[in-house]
């Protein structure tokens, strides 16, 4: 583990961290919503449009070849990043949302029969809930949920007990965006495979925090979003095992995804292109490689160690500041550096306004997890979420702002 990462030099790579908000230096604690982008990513975007812009995969000219090469280089890098067996198992999408919709619409429709079960948890992001509601309504399959405990975790035994022979698909979040809880997916994947079910993992919140190895996990599908991983917005990845992707019908149809088209029928391209209809998000895919490189160069161990120390610093500081009106939501011991909370007699939205007045960006609301909020009997929380560029000084400033707010109420 490399303890000597230089946060100042990492911060220097993120131009947006120099912004002033309401006359105060920006403190960006909304990383679970989207991370900021390093110079390398921003420069790659600009450089593509300045030097290489061309449509990919279908032209003889130099620029097209260059663009295609850079585009496919990201796929190769991604393969290494998640340890896929082959790069063709990595499909570019708009984001986690589209990746899950693709699997639900294509694989879900292919396998689900009336009475089959699709197993989720109660802490899913709406993007891993609504697509399954729709495909279940269409196929007659039934949604089931692994319950969430009061600390925001799921009990492994309870989860395993939900995996019966009717379950055909388990789709669950690796790390909860609202609470930060890390779920015990490895054992769930093994157990699900034991009864022949397939498992999709929503890794939106996991990818920037710890190393992903899809072969070691043996998950069948995994979804990632570039923008939560220091990369551009509007881009994500669907990883799927080749034998499953190969058997699945296309999701969208048009250019790129075909082999041969006749007036009345068509044959489809091979993986991954079968699932990449139309001109893809070329510039962002190319720039995404620099984001993957940024994370790999620092190393997941160093990132996790820095973020964990920030998180423990935060919990300690909250305890010491004796913020009596502050109630933590999501207190499991196995978490990433995300903390949701409420302040008594203030609406979460107003806490967000007050913190913004101090230049502090946090998320407020239901975090696209309304059923989870309902379970906790609330309509939203304030959420602080950390990334590699955050510092203990920023946490001190945040705590001081919270103290001032708590002092003013009552």
């Amino acid at each position, binding site marked *: 583990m490399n303890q000597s990462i230089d946060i100042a030099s990492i911060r220097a790579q993120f131009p947006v961290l120099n912004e002033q908000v*309401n006359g105060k230096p920006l403190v960006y604690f909304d990383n679970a919503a989207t991370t900021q982008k390093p110079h390398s990513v921003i420069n790659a975007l600009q450089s593509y449009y300045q030097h290489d812009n061309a449509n990919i995969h279908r032209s003889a000219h130099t620029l097209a070849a260059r663009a295609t090469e850079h585009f496919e280089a990201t796929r190769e890098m991604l393969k290494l990043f998640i340890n896929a067996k082959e790069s063709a198992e990595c499909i570019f999408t708009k984001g986690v949302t589209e990746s899950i919709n693709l699997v639900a619409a294509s694989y879900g429709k292919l396998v689900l029969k009336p009475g089959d079960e699709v197993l989720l948890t109660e802490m899913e992001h709406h993007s891993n809930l609504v697509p399954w509601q729709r495909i279940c309504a269409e196929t007659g399959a039934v949604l089931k949920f692994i319950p969430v405990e009061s600390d925001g975790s799921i009990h492994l035994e309870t989860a395993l007990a939900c995996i019966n022979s009717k379950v055909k698909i388990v789709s669950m979040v690796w790390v909860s965006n609202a609470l930060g809880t890390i779920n015990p997916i490895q054992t769930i994947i093994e157990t699900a495979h034991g009864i022949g079910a397939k498992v999709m993992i929503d890794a939106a919140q996991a990818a920037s925090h710890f190393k992903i190895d899809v072969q070691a996990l043996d998950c069948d599908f995994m979804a990632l979003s570039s923008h939560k991983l220091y990369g551009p917005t509007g881009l994500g990845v669907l990883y799927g095992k080749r034998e499953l992707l190969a058997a699945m019908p296309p999701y969208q149809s048009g250019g790129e995804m075909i082999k041969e088209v006749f007036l009345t029928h068509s044959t489809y391209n091979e993986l991954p292109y079968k699932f990449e209809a139309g001109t893809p998000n070329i510039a962002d895919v190319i720039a995404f490689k620099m984001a993957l490189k940024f994370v790999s160069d620092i190393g997941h161990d160093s990132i996790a160690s820095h973020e964990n120390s920030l998180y423990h610093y935060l919990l300690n500081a909250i305890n010491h500041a004796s913020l009596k009106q502050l109630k933590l939501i999501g207190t499991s011991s196995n978490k990433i550096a995300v903390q949701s909370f409420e302040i008594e*007699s*203030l*609406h979460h*939205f*107003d806490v967000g*306004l007050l913190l913004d*007045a101090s230049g502090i960006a946090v998320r407020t609301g239901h975090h696209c997890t309304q059923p989870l909020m309902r379970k906790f009997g609330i309509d939203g929380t304030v959420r602080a979420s950390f990334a590699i560029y955050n510092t203990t000084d920023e946490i001190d400033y945040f705590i001081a702002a919270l103290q001032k707010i708590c002092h003013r109420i009552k």
Partner: protein
Amino acid sequence: MKTINEIQDEIVADFSLFEDDMESKLFYLMDLGKKLEPMDSAHQTPEFLIKGCMSKVWVYPIFVDGILHFEVDSNTEITKGLVALLVKIWNNRTPSEILNTDLYFIAQIGMGNMIGSQRSNGFAGMIQQMKLYATAFQSHN
């Protein structure tokens, strides 16, 4: 008793003291909420909740001798400050005074910037409801 516009001018003057200090403006709103007369909890029923607010805001009208009086409360402090501003301006006025008010203070204190668009919608809901009560009691008269 001060006129409606004298009170609006006072509010504008108070907020201008804070210049660009957004935090102090929000704290000032919270303090206004704290100074409100307590609301009879028996009046905090769904019927008197303002629709379209993220927080719970109750407005209970009392109409005596041609004059409207508002009992108000909220479960959150900034919203309570917002409804307190309206009470400051509109308490103990006739329905027609309320209905003829140009609430120019809202733009002058930069309310939109201060509370954001979501809260602004809720604030507009409070104004609308208080005017509806004024209309109802005016025709009642």
